[in-house]
């Protein structure tokens, strides 16, 4: 079983290297992605929810005096995210367009990004947890710079510099975390760190600063307001597979880091910084939400919306109770699927019409009945309509926020921000429905007569993503049962 966990990140990694060395690009990439998905599915289903905790552990000791080892294993949260990663990775490999020049490099980069994300979710050692995530940085830079569209060069620089500085802040925070306990207890092993936390090893005087650094570092990687400006431009310019992987999966690394490392180890510090997180996430929901409404192009609307939705996940995290954290974890999964589906379809639109500007489009539903139907479903999911996983998770997040009340004391800051977040749903509805109307309804311009419905391959892929949203939306327990025991361990 632990072999399967290794396969989830190793198969794209090895396939990527193989493709660089000359294996046939598309076929190898698809096989690797299928192997990874199959392994992730078996791991997700095979994870023993009754006994919870970390399972399928395997480790390779590297530096004994630092207690640094290559430790891999999963709990419910990471199993869920690994499943998400491999679903989106397969979808993005499948949807990768025909590349005229340097096809091998293109597929290798996609696989490296996927491997970086999967490796980060599977690692239970701070060093490799961090290292795997950064592995995706250079392929992203190359992909956007070489195969991107629009203002690709400036987008590539921005995302790379932003994320590298965010990562280095995070690195300092993680080293600080490592140095907090007494020298004899220091370890990079996340499992051991979590056991140490109960002895109060991380409640010393430095813990508030360390948590602040982690919040800043992880926050930048998740496009926390006001460190979000790298995201919209990069997502709009990047090739579709990269956007799907980055917005859908890789960005979740920062949230995962907060849930895996920062909160369980330093709950007191997390509570003391909750006010700051609340203010910033309100910026995500309100400021970025309004900015989203102002967008006049589908790709930018989607890119901004993905920044805005991070606010809800942060709200669940800031609430710091079982129900809110459950919602955050579920929303990470749901958002990953829905944004990947939306970006996949917007990529198809761009391929056929070249422009994504609302003023140029309109009435495309006549030519693209299937695409407009599925796009509508994904739109509803993104807004958070009942039946989709996004609804279930946002609901939990709101409950979580409101639950943080002091009886008889009126509205506290959690409830204020919770109310703002509720209005955010209206904002989402405004921009998503407006986008839908502008593209698919109304008068069709004569020049779009030749536009065809989406090809079967895209149809299957997007259906798969939407089906995932529906299944989890109707039976949220499929994911929640796996995630909740891990959360209950550190939230009393």
């Amino acid at each position: 079983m632990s072999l399967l966990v290794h396969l989830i990140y190793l198969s794209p990694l090895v396939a990527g290297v193989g493709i660089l060395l000359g294996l046939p690009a598309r076929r190898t990439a698809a096989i690797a992605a299928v192997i990874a998905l199959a392994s992730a599915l078996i791991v997700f289903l095979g994870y023993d929810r009754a006994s919870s905790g970390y399972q399928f552990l395997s480790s390779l000791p590297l530096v004994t005096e630092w207690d640094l080892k290559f430790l891999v294993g999963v709990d419910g949260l990471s199993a869920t995210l690994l499943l998400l990663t491999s679903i989106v990775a397969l979808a993005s490999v499948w949807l990768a367009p025909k590349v005229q020049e340097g096809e091998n490099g293109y597929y290798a980069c996609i696989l490296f990004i996927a491997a970086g994300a999967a490796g980060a979710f599977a690692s239970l050692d701070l060093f490799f947890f961090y290292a795997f995530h950064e592995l995706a940085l250079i392929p992203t830079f190359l992909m956007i710079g070489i195969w991107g569209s629009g203002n690709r060069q400036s987008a590539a620089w921005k995302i790379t510099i932003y994320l590298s500085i965010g990562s280095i802040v995070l690195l300092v925070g993680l080293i600080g975390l490592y140095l907090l306990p007494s020298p004899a207890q220091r370890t990079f092993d996340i499992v051991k760190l979590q056991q140490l936390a109960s002895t109060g090893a991380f409640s010393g005087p430095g813990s508030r600063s360390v948590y602040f650094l982690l919040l800043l570092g992880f926050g930048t990687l998740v496009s926390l307001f006001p460190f979000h400006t790298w995201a919209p431009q990069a997502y709009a310019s990047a090739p579709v597979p990269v956007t799907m992987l980055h917005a859908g999966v890789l960005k979740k690394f920062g949230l995962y880091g907060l849930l895996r490392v920062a909160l369980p180890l330093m709950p007191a510090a997390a509570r003391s910084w909750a006010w700051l997180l609340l203010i910033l996430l309100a910026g995500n929901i309100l400021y970025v939400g309004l900015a989203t409404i102002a967008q006049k192009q589908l790709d930018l609307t989607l890119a901004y919306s993905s920044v805005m939705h991070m606010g809800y996940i942060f709200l669940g995290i800031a609430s710091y109770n079982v129900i809110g954290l459950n919602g955050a974890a579920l929303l990470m999964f749901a958002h990953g699927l829905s944004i990947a589906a939306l970006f996949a379809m917007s990529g198809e639109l761009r391929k056929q019409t070249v422009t994504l500007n609302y003023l140029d489009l309109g009435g495309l539903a006549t030519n693209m009945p299937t695409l407009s139907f599925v796009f509508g479903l994904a739109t509803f999911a993104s807004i958070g309509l009942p039946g989709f996983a996004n609804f279930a998770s946002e609901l939990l997040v709101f409950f979580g926020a409101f639950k943080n009340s002091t009886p008889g004391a009126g509205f506290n800051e959690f409830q204020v921000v919770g109310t703002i977040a509720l209005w955010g749903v209206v904002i989402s509805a405004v921009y998503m429905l407006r986008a839908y109307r502008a593209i698919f309804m109304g008068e069709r311009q004569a020049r779009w007569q030749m536009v065809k419905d989406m090809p079967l391959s895209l149809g299957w892929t997007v259906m798969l993503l939407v089906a995932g949203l529906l299944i989890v939306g109707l039976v949220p327990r499929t994911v929640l049962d796996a995630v909740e025991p891990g959360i209950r361990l550190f939230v009393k």
Partner: protein
Amino acid sequence: MTFPPIFFELFVLALGILILLLETFFEKRDRKMFAVVGIVGLAVVFLFLQASGPGASGMASYVVDPPAIFFKKLSVLTTIVVLIMSIDYADTIKRFLPADSPQAGLGEFFALPVLTCAGMMWMSSAIDFILIFVSLELVTISFYVLVAYMRRNASSLEAGVKYLILSALATGFTVYGITWIYGVTRQTNLVQISQVLPSISVDNQPGVLFGALLVLIGLGFKIAAAPFQFWVPDVYQGAPTPITAFLSVGSKSVGFIVLLRVVQAFQSLPAVGDKLITAVILLAVATLLYGNLAALPQTNFKRLLAYSSIGHAGYLLMAVAGISAKDSGQAVVVYLAAYLLMTLLSFLVLVIVSNHGGGDEIVQFNGLSKRSPFLAFALLVAMMSLAGVPLTAGFLGKFMVFKVALETRQFLLIALAIITVGCGFYFYLKVVRAMYWQPAPANVAAIPVSKLSLAAIIIMVLLIFVLGIFPQVALGLLPG
């Protein structure tokens, strides 16, 4: 089989003289063979060094401790790669030498680095100011010749003159500092100085501090720390490229071992030691800022590497400033090992590419990924490592430096370093952008790579990943 420890230096010295003699007796032979003789000879030395362990040397001014052995290995490896580069660079050298015979002057060009190597190896073991000074000069004087080697190239000559004058000035500072230290402590041996220091009178403390600061200035020149860095860009750009690589790796590394030993020796007297650390911190601040900010607008690859070498000196100084932490020496060693690999790899690719493009500008690398995917990938790895992307050797170095700095609570340095690492991503990725984003100029042929260089590149790329993924390998470089 055991040798007296000084045997290694003597062997390398003999090897250098042998190459000079070969030139006299085998005038008709292809001179590139002499470089191969040097490479093989040094490889043998490296194997013996690998097998040897620390031990007593029987001399008061000369130690054989783990750092000494590490730095000797580092010097030998650097020299080997420099000789490999020199073979590829030989054609360029010939263009700038008076042509009385087709290969005149090449023999010395291969012999001098070997002699320099002997000086560096001595320096690694030196714990007496006299020996430090003598070996430092052996290294520096060889570099005077090497930097100005391309006699008919004005910029090489200019670099030579600049290096000569400024280096002589720095040497003056060092010697003057040593006399002050000697005047107070009556010792030149670092071990003795460290023992004597706590007992000197308070009146004499400023004198020792003054001497130590002067020595720091002299060493700051060698390791290219700001504000003693102004010679670096011009000299690096003007010197023959293999020599630039040699300067930036070899000369810098041994500068750091001496710096570590000197700073360590003065720790026995906190009144002086702490002030010395403060000076090192100030140097680190200036070096980090200057090296990384000035690198941003560079368009010449050699100049970019020159500024990058200043910037890396800043990170290394951060580790030296944290000398009270247990891992400080190890951080320096790991960082230098990583620095050696990634810098030499960059220079090696530069030599090969500029041989077939005609210049050192970053524009020359446009579209390299299409002309030679292999070289482009190798340089990509080098740039990733220099920028500090995880799972490469460069990241491990940065990781350890940050760890040491956090342990010793150097928060100002850490805040600065976060910014400069961000700058680094920009200017290293500028090269990546040229190679991968920009279209190749029309009608350029693929770039041939000699077998020797090919092997060296593959080994260095692999080592960068091995050190990055298996930190214990890097930590094993300095046992104990």
